[in-house]
């Protein structure tokens, strides 16, 4: 069973373990709202960066910034909305195995086709 970060403000339902397989605590709705606000702000900043690139930003700098923001959004959803931060570690390992395998296979494929 996964443990919950002992933040009393954000884990009001720590006792709501509904036996969901390695039952876990559900954070409060307010924490979800905070994550959603962060996602919205990051999306707005992504779009801003896109338009700002028209004014002479280098492609490499733009791509690095976009990838970083994409990764933060990705992990915010996975950790909080999909509960992986609070859930059994096996779920995290299974999912990340798929992510890393996919990235490895297709990076290799793109390299083989001299994409870079």
């Amino acid at each position: 069973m996964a443990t919950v970060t002992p933040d009393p403000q954000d884990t009001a339902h720590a006792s709501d373990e509904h036996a969901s397989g390695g039952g876990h605590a559900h954070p409060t709705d307010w924490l979800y709202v905070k994550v959603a606000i962060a996602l919205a702000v990051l999306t707005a900043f992504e779009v801003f960066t896109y338009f700002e690139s028209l004014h002479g930003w280098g492609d490499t700098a733009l791509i690095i910034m976009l990838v970083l923001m994409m990764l933060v959004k990705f992990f915010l959803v996975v950790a909080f909305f999909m509960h992986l931060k609070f859930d059994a570690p096996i779920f995290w390992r299974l999912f990340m195995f798929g992510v890393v395998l996919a990235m490895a296979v297709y990076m290799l494929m793109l390299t083989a086709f001299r994409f870079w």
Partner: protein
Amino acid sequence: MADTMAAEAATHSAPREEHRTSTGISNEKLAMWVFLGSECLLFGGLISTYMFNKGRIGPGDIGPADVFDIPFTSVSSFVLLMSSLTMVFAVSSIVRGDLRGNRIWLATTAALGATFVAGQVYEFTAFYSEGLGFTTNLFGSSFYALTGFHGAHVTIGIIMLMSLFVMSLRGNLGPERAEKVEIIGLYWHFVDIVWIVIFTIVYLFPQ
């Protein structure tokens, strides 16, 4: 004897929602995570194919910079992101036993998903009218394949959400079945994170 058999039959037919497990964690949830891990390979293939093909267009041929409408797609992305928020509200409301709240959030999530799909249909129609068909060039084929597969996943998610909604209306979805909502929520969040990747790589990366 007959009474005993009847009592046994009643016990077996009584609604129970025990979590089947041979590992200490729910089999259904484990299966969903394995499925989502395998889906990464499907979308990884489609995304890398798009990356490989997007620049393979002839001179004067229609390309990404000619058709993409970033403000419109940004709004669609925002709608899908917010549907993830309403989905977690659906899960937390059923865990609390708030069935009415659960129905409201399920319906809201489905409506936001439908808005996203409607936006995608509009976008496809606009691109087609600008001359980009599925077989126009490699960019068109890989773009429609990638975003079309994602749209199909969102549509399947909407169907599952509406099924939960109907189950709830019929009184078949109580707090004892909260894990069902959570598992469908996992699928919904997965289509959201796939879109996070697609939006960045397909739409925002320099063309």
